[in-house]
């Protein structure tokens, strides 16, 4: 029974919050009433059984709770009328057997307003960290405490961040809508950036408990799927989904029992998750069938080349360099340029890659980014320039943040400093 409620929670939480926010404009009220509806489900369902349409059941309860709250407060009659009209718009709620299957009403029996909610949570006038937190709270239904744990901040700090964001939405007049026209493409990429950040926060196991982190990845994929459902023509949403699945395919193989990083080259490819790879391939094909090419699609294509190679030696580095060329052309990002340098080193030898990395170093565009000295160190090492390698590893160690990455660099450093210098 608890599983049934948990299932309904995953399916319906965001939908219910989205509708209540739309109708009342009150984010706190929406969350509290959605919460109340699930608490009621935990009491009732074990006695009465799971309703045929759990979504419709929960929506009625949540709406009635909102009704009661507003009535008790005897306030804001406009909101009250809005809620009343919810009943008129959706006469089917009371009778789940005759739910309309028109555009608005989905199989859950609850119209899907989540797209508005996603775009509002990811509004660029909110701080990035607030966007992430608000998305997790309102769409995924994570509690403030859970979000605080995932981002390693005190719960009070996270609570304040959420309150401030909701306050700004109301007071500064951030509209509750999906942007139209020219703004849509830009805002969509903003939403995708939030989801990818969420995924990476969970994926790069830099800190925090394993469980919390895996949960973040699952939430990010779940949210991207909702977005893909609601925006079926957006190829970049599919590209992002493909990328996340390819990453997740390698999740278990990328650290050893001690939590140390295993490089792509040394990973046990038998441990890569074939189902995840197939899922990634499916989304990538779907993305390419849209006919446009975006940066997530290209990143997913690169990740796809890696996971399709059965051995590290059979990696098609030429194809990867090619994809990086396109990606660099599109993004002009120095981080992409660095990754391209690594691919070139695999393709044409470490000297060619090093020349590119040195050029990025000279540009100063990646100053302070630990992967730049780490890449240079690695290429020096492959060229046998052990002193240069040691110096660059030390530079990287000064900048590195996560413990596993630090241990990896220290291991390499001791390798190149062992024994007499070759130079």
């Amino acid at each position, binding site marked *: 029974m608890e599983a049934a409620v948990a299932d309904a929670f995953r399916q319906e939480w965001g939908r219910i919050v989205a509708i209540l926010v739309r109708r009342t404009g009150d984010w706190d009220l929406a969350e509290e009433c959605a919460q109340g509806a699930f608490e009621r489900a935990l009491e009732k369902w074990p006695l009465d059984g799971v309703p045929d349409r759990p979504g419709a059941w929960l929506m009625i309860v949540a709406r009635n709770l909102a009704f009661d709250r507003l009535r008790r407060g005897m306030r804001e009659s406009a909101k009250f009328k809005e809620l009343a009209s919810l009943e008129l718009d959706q006469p089917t709620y009371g009778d789940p057997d005759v739910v309309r299957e028109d555009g608005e009403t989905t199989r859950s029996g609850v119209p899907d307003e989540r797209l508005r909610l996603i775009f509002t949570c990811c509004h660029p006038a909110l701080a990035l960290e607030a966007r992430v937190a608000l998305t997790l709270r309102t769409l995924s239904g994570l509690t403030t405490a859970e979000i605080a744990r995932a981002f390693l901040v005190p719960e009070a700090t996270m609570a304040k961040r959420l309150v401030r964001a909701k306050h700004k939405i109301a007071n*500064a007049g951030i*509209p509750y809508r999906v942007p139209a026209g020219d703004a849509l493409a830009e805002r969509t990429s903003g939403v995708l950036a939030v989801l990818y950040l969420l995924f990476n926060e969970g994926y790069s196991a830099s800190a925090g408990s394993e469980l919390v982190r895996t949960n973040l990845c699952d939430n990010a994929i779940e949210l991207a799927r909702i977005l893909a459902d609601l925006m079926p023509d957006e190829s970049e949403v599919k590209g992002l989904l493909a990328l996340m699945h390819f990453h997740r395919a390698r999740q278990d193989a990328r650290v050893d029992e001690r939590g140390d990083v295993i490089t792509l080259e040394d990973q046990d490819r038998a441990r890569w998750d074939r189902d995840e790879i197939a899922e990634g391939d499916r989304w990538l094909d779907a993305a390419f069938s849209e006919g446009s090419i975006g940066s997530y699609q290209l990143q997913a294509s690169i990740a796809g080349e890696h996971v399709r190679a059965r051995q590290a030696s059979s990696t098609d580095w030429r194809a990867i360099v090619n994809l990086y060329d396109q990606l660099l052309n599109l993004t002009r990002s120095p981080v992409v340029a660095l990754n391209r340098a690594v691919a070139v080193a695999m393709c044409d030898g470490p000297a060619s890659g090093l020349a590119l990395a040195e050029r990025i170093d000279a540009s100063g565009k990646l100053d302070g980014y630990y992967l730049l000295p780490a890449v240079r160190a690695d290429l020096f090492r492959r060229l046998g320039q052990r002193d240069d390698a040691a110096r660059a590893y030390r530079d990287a160690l000064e900048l590195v943040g996560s413990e596993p990455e630090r241990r990896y660099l220290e291991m390499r450093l001791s390798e190149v400093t062992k024994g007499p210098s070759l130079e």
Partner: protein
Amino acid sequence: MQYLLIHAIEDGIESQDGRAADSLSALNVWLEEVIRLGVDLQGSRLGPASDATTVRVRGGEVLLTDGPFAETKEQVAGYDILECENIDDAVGWAAQHPTAHLGSIEVRPLFGDPPRTILPEPKAMTKRYLLIVCVEEGLQLSPEESRRVGPATEEWVARAEGSGARLYGSRLEAVNTARTVRRGSAQVIVTDGPFAETKEQIAGFDVLECADLDEALDLAAAHPVARFGAMEVRPLWPFDDA
């Protein structure tokens, strides 16, 4: 002459030890007086600095920041437009305003002599915003940019007024004309200069009436000064408690 009073106070200081009630009744006394004498043309309290969004356009890209244009201890909390004979009179009125107790009030002459405007009643389904136009002091524009910015701003004003979004606004006299009023326990302290020594200084302002924040942000981004300055978009206080 018209003068802008910029009220600057520390976030949340009002809610301390009953100051709020004191300052509210003092504010009403002040307002009654300046309105009776026709000195105060318009003014409003602003939403807190945490509701601000700052817009910059660099290399054709619109960059938004959550928060005010500068992280100062005191933040812009309200404004008034006064009609006075000279800046000393304006400073005199500022010294009697309760904000002078709570924080500071910067007094700046408006540039030129814009038409006197009393704001109309708000239209339904709109929100009002103060657009605070900030420019780095002593910033050297390219000859091309300096030639462009004047006419482009006039064009922006004409367009924003035409659409009904811009209700009022003005460029300000240079920051070296600013005087700042603070009131200690016994005496009024008037200093030359702005309320805070920030890199970017307030160079002008516009009062906007928009459907929502997106519309206000679009207008801010379209302003020619956004290409080299910073545009803080701040909602006006939504409740008419004056």
